[in-house]
């Protein structure tokens, strides 16, 4: 009997979604354990003592942390359609763009949406837009970054597909628009419409409500990030 798979989760997390998308694409059943991040459980602190964050994947007695590490683990530990290409050079390219998304999009996008320092924000937004252009160029007429099916880079970029629209609506800041990024916007639609992946995407209206409620806190966080 295969070991059970559990994922430590918290509502609205794009990082948790990455793990769940990978599990669903591989056809691996899992159980969600909800965490209250303002009151972290013993289980979370035991299995992710270094970062104390979600997602954590529990597979039998193994604990895997860090969303992209989890996605590669899922790809390697379970059978099912591969999330990375077979060719080593193509694999290197997939890992490169997944890492690019991780490095270039989280912080700068956060600051673009929430920071109230308009001058600094302009510079950051310009950089964010340039990076979106680089990403758009990678799609090159493909349905997904992974080709015909969803792969590592699509999963890494899932927050762009689903969460970005929510942040744009709440903050009034437009980064990813149809006019400027037609290919990326089309990709976003393909990702969020995908039968497998959409089962683990949080409902859009719930995300809007959740992030709207926490808006003031994000502004403080974003301004603090700008100071660094």
């Amino acid at each position, binding site marked *: 009997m295969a070991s059970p798979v559990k994922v430590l989760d918290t509502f609205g997390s794009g990082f948790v979604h990455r793990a769940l998308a990978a599990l669903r694409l591989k056809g691996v059943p899992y159980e969600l354990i909800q965490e209250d991040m303002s009151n972290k459980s013993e289980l979370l602190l035991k299995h992710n003592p*270094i970062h104390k964050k979600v997602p954590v994947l529990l*597979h039998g007695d*193994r604990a*895997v*942390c*860090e969303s992209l*590490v*989890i996605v*590669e*683990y899922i790809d*390697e*530990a379970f059978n099912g359609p591969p999330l990375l290409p077979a060719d*080593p*050079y193509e*694999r*290197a390219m997939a*890992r*490169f763009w997944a*890492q*690019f998304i991780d490095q270039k999009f989280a912080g700068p996008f956060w600051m673009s949406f929430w920071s109230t320092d308009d001058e600094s924000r302009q510079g950051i937004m310009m950089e964010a837009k340039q990076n979106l252009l*680089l990403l758009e160029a990678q799609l090159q007429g493909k349905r997904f970054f992974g080709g015909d099916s969803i792969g590592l880079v699509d999963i890494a970029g899932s927050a762009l597909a689903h969460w970005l629209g929510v942040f744009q609506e709440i903050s009034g800041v437009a980064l990813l628009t149809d006019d400027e990024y037609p290919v990326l916007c089309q990709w976003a639609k393909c990702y969020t419409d995908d039968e497998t992946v959409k089962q683990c995407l949080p409902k859009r209206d719930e995300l809007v409500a959740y992030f709207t409620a926490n808006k003031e806190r994000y502004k403080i966080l974003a301004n603090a990030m700008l100071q660094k």
Partner: protein
Amino acid sequence: MAGGNGELKLVGEWASPFVTRVKLLLHIKGLSYEYVEEDLRNKSELLLSSNPVHKSVPVLIHDGKPICESQIILQYIDEVYASTGPSLLPADPYERAVARFWTAYIDDKIATPWDRLFRAKTDEERAEAMKQLFTAVEALEGGFKESSKGKDFFGGDSVGYLDIIVGSLVSWVKATSVLAGAELINAAKMPLLAAWMERFCELDAAKAILQDVDALVEHGRMLMAKNAARASK
């Protein structure tokens, strides 16, 4: 451009521990390559065209195709040259995840304060960065325990992925210890890692590739002086 003949070219910079990683692996695998030393203050056409996104080293160019980012390069070499020399990443997916986890930890939680240490403009900034760096490094003792499972190396009986990742930092560890006036890998607090470091330095690859510590101390002093001077202008 000639293709398909397996030509390897590495674009690097002598002080960079990320470049050291790739050199260590190429040495262990017994692979020959052309090395191009970059002046990062005056980046070459080769570097800018082969790494337009980050414009950084290392870049491995294999049959004219560039691969960037040290961890990605290591995995690429390990996969393409799987039948040449020892394998770097373990076969087991969980052990691979452990290796990748600690690599991400090092490249984020350790590299960030380390970088800040040399870019610090004031004594206070430097002291704070030093404190964060020392704290972040201490967690590696646990990483070694988890990965080595009581054996000599992160990779177990023989050198593996994390040995290269951490090993590439050894000359910088020693140089930073000189500059800080305190051992970054303190044998009392981190006995396993301290013992591992001695063992690592005995390896042929380490002797051939690791930078001269005095040269790095000199380099570190220069970086610190440059950034402090900028602040007082």
